[in-house]
């Protein structure tokens, strides 16, 4: 068909408010990640961990009635299948480790390419403001984190409760639900802000992966080294991953030692500072892009 054979047709309809544009931006980001085979390998790893635990919890409950010895054996070898707050925290931490790897490689595609290849110009030349774009992209990264951490943890929580044959598990463990949501939120917000900030400045995959590795591998290693050298636990606060996990533990109500409690306030401050500085770093990058050249 060509121009001569098709007439231009007008369109009339009600346009949605501008904030609705955040969702297509977030959805497109997710779509782009899910389209790459490399990311499916990493997502597969996360899925494998989830399915393994899912199967173990199921088998445990099957054995409880039929072969209690076997159930105890599973409990013994798999401390993560006990259905306590620790089960979900450890599971989410493990999932988040895989997610971190995924984010390191996906950051350039989610944010960096928009800066380098004109994607941001495309977004901003529509009925979209800079904040809509920022929120949309943060939502995209946050959803990716939630898809691999919070949602599987919630599924396991529901599965555990369902297999106990009574609703008591849910009512008695509302704190766990709060913990899953709280830890998930801390992970999503911190990682999405940090990734957005780093990807908007570094833009390409290699420098981004190297910087990400510095923050989440080198710094913790250095922190551990300093801790053992000076015998001071405060050095651990240098590791963002440790701080996030400490906040997660607090969300699950799992902080019962005085020493950990002492580290919690500075850990919260560090995580908050990382979030604030990331946001401050994002703003000039997004503002710098000119829609009209």
């Amino acid at each position, binding site marked *: *068909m060509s121009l001569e054979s*098709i007439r231009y047709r007008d369109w009339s309809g009600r346009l949605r408010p501008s904030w609705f544009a955040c969702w297509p931006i977030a959805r497109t980001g997710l779509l782009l990640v899910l389209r790459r085979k490399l990311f499916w390998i990493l997502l597969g790893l996360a899925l494998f961990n989830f399915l393994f635990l899912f199967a173990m919890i199921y088998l445990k409950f099957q054995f409880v009635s039929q072969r209690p010895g076997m159930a105890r054996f599973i409990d013994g070898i798999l401390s993560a299948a006990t259905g306590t707050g620790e089960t979900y925290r450890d599971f989410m931490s493990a999932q988040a480790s895989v997610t971190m790897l995924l984010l390191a490689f996906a950051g350039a595609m989610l944010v960096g390419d928009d800066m380098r290849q004109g994607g941001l110009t495309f977004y901003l*030349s529509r009925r979209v403001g800079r904040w809509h774009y920022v929120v949309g992209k943060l939502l995209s990264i946050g959803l990716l984190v939630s898809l691999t951490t919070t949602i599987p943890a919630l599924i396991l929580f529901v599965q555990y409760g369902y297999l106990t044959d009574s609703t008591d598990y849910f009512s008695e463990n509302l704190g766990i639900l709060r913990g899953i949501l709280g830890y998930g939120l801390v992970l999503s917000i911190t990682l999405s802000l940090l990734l957005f900030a780093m990807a908007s400045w570094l833009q390409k995959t290699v420098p981004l992966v190297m910087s990400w590795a510095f923050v989440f591998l080198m710094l913790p290693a250095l922190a551990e080294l300093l801790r053992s050298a000076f015998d001071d636990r405060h050095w651990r606060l240098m590791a963002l991953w440790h701080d996030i996990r400490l906040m997660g533990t607090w969300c699950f109500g799992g902080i019962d030692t005085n020493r950990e409690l002492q580290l919690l306030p500075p850990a919260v401050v560090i995580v908050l500072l990382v979030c604030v500085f990331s946001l401050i770093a994002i703003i000039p990058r997004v503002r710098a892009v000119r829609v009209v050249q």
Partner: protein
Amino acid sequence: MTSLLHLEQVTHFYGSVCALRDVDLTIEPGAIGLVGQNGAGKSTMIQILLGLIRPSQGNATVLGHNVRSAGIRLRGRVGYMPERAATVSGLTGIEYVALAGELCGMPRRQAMRRAHETLSYLGMEDARYRRLDEFSVGMIQRMKLAATLVHDPDLLMLDEPTAGLDPDGRAAMLALLKTLAARPGKSLILSSHLLGDIERVCSFAIILNQGQVVTAGHLEELRAERQRCYQLQWDGEATGFLAALRKRGVEVQVDGDHARAIVPDDWNTRTFFVEAQEHAVLLTGLEPEEEDLEAVYHRVIKSPGANAAIA
């Protein structure tokens, strides 16, 4: 009828640099060309008209919306095609255009349906499921146009739409723009360095220089303001003939056996023949010179009036 654009004393500064100064314009709907050198203020004007920046002083309305208060909403009725690639790599053609629709506020289903329609209209239906990364420059330009058209805006703003296109692609794009500009109730603003493109598509031109509107009007009116020029050709010795013309106030630029003559306002064409006969010169050619937009542009930019206005 609401005017398409109405600018009142619009001035814009970037720091201490004045990018636009005291722009007063009222433009009726139609196909409008925006002409000017680099740094003339075109981009600033487009940004103001898109609601991307607020003018430092003055007021502007586009399609009846005040750019100060309408902001983002304005872009629901305006479609802007940026000069740079502005694509989201990894998306297919149809996803890209539908996303543009959704970003303009269209519900997803309608955006997808409309994206199919628009791509078919632009002759891109075979490419809609291919990834943008595989597209040629010409196809990217068409995709960008489809993304601009998808929400059926009342005003299209196109920034260098033929940039990077080969001659065939350029001709096809211009034909398309001409068709789009002819749609009832729709308008188009075309910003380009290629004045021939503007001449082929637009009926109205705004010429900017150093942040000021030097002239704005229908192309025919602008051409009518031209200095009257003729191309002359002759046989034989014409020194006396040319001297006689100069005496009568004609500005003659000789180049071999032909010359370009710029005549005074009250000139009668017959005078050429009278003088030629008197000086025994055989005029073999006498042709009024057509002024294209480029000539209009150079004349207007160089005119003392323009410089006085800027000063």
